[in-house]
């Protein structure tokens, strides 16, 4: 009872502003603060707005790839780090914290200078690399505590029984830390979707993402087409979760 009430309140808190911006996606006027009447104008505009659609595709593409890559690298790195000598562990972890500590502008500018000195073309690739770079620390942070808590004898036992170290990792360690890998991936995905400053300085050539569009738009007031897009996103995810839930219930029953 307490559990349901607490989680209910928590989700109300988390979704209150989301509901507000969803409601205003149906607003007639451009204002995100005053309700003037129901309309689907912004949805129509969204389907005409090529720029917004491109930004959305790039956003999703970068988020999906950077999550996959950073989760992969982050997980295996964490497994490796844990085996390093303590001094090197401390070094790796401290450096790992830098992008988390640093103001985004510092990371953004230093990456921009790095790519510039490597004579890279700014665009999709540089944006993607930056996202991978700032996501990995979060994956490592998420995976590591669970690795430390793992029974150290487990992997050794597996190897004693004839498993190669690789098999021990894939068959024994990874299944044990799966929830924290999931958590790390979720965080990487979230960091990627929400980033503005680093993306701004490390993209170009017509490659943009939703954050860049939204921040640039903010000066004249954000158009509710963005709200419409957010509403569709939330609706799609909710539907998927609901269906997944149904399927798992059915599976549990049969």
């Amino acid at each position, binding site marked *: 009872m307490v559990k349901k009430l607490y989680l209910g309140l*928590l989700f109300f808190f988390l979704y209150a502003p989301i509901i507000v911006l969803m409601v205003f996606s149906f607003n007639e006027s451009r204002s995100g603060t005053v309700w003037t009447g129901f309309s689907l104008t912004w949805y129509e505009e969204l389907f005409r707005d090529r720029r917004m659609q491109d930004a959305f595709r790039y956003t999703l593409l970068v988020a999906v790839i950077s999550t996959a890559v950073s989760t992969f690298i982050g997980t295996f790195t964490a497994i490796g780090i844990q*085996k390093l000598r303590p001094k090197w562990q401390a070094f790796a972890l401290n450096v790992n914290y830098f992008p988390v500590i*640093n103001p985004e502008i510092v990371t953004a500018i230093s990456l921009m200078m790095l790519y510039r000195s490597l004579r890279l073309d700014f665009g999709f690739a540089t944006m993607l690399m930056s996202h991978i770079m700032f996501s990995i620390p979060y994956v490592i942070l998420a995976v590591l505590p669970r690795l430390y808590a793992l029974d150290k004898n487990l992997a050794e036992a597996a190897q004693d029984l004839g498993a190669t170290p690789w098999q021990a990792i894939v068959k024994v360690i990874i299944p044990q830390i799966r929830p924290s890998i999931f*958590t790390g991936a979720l965080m990487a995905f979230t960091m990627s979707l929400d980033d*503005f400053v680093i993306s701004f300085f490390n993209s170009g050539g017509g490659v943009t993402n939703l954050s860049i569009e939204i921040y640039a738009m903010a000066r004249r007031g954000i158009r509710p087409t963005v709200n419409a897009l957010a509403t569709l996103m939330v609706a799609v*995810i909710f539907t998927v979760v609901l269906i997944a839930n149904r399927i798992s219930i059915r599976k549990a029953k049969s």
Partner: protein
Amino acid sequence: MDTKKLSYPYLVWITLTILVPMLLIFLYSIIEPGPEPLTFQFSLAHYLRALDGLHLQVLWGSFVIALASTAACLLIGYPAAWFISRLRARSQSQVILLLMMPMWINMLLRSYAWMTILSRNGILNSVLAFFGLPEQNLLYTDFAVILGMVYNFLPFMILPIYTAILKVDANLVDAARDLGASPGETFLKVIFPLSIPGIITGITMVFLPSMSSFVIPQLLGGGQFLMIGNLIERQYLLTGNWHFGSALAMLLMAFILLSVWLMKRFDPKSMDSGEGVIPW
């Protein structure tokens, strides 16, 4: 194959993408343009400037807000993580997903929505007026700033704690109860200690980035909360003095590493460089 070699590629990678740029920023912070064009000379002037009262005041203000936000996230997030871990196994990952989903909507959009809720002619006041309650001016207050920060960082506290609690064996809890421990004792002696690694990760993930974030305090605090992240960004973009900006960034980094080191000193578990604690 040696497992630790798995970390080598990343060590090379962070050396290139993090350490080298950081060294450059450090270098920037200790030099200034020399008398001739394109010459540089060693100088500590930027640090002296960074350490003056005004900037320390800004740094302290950011620390207080980050600390308050982290504490609030922990207080709200711990029970949440606990309750989620007690849900039916198959709905847990879906609840976690739904917990994270609001963060997928752009931060600016979410903050604006909060402003629409909290502002003088906003939604909250309309609801209060409907029930005949007095109007509240919540926007542009300390409360609004902390609320915005908690809103933005809460999932990063809940998730690590949840994964830590998840591994607490239900049998362990039952055993404690069978041996006569009260629910309170069971929690304090069995569950809480096992969730400490999650708490530490959570604090790290909330405290570190919130020290340098400034958009939320700027919007919900009405610009009256000057944050160190804002000060640094202004040096890089507005004044174009990267030397001073770099000195401020190094100061921030030193300050955070120091406070984390202090936190570690007060954490008895890490004394024996022990189980489940991130080594520093």
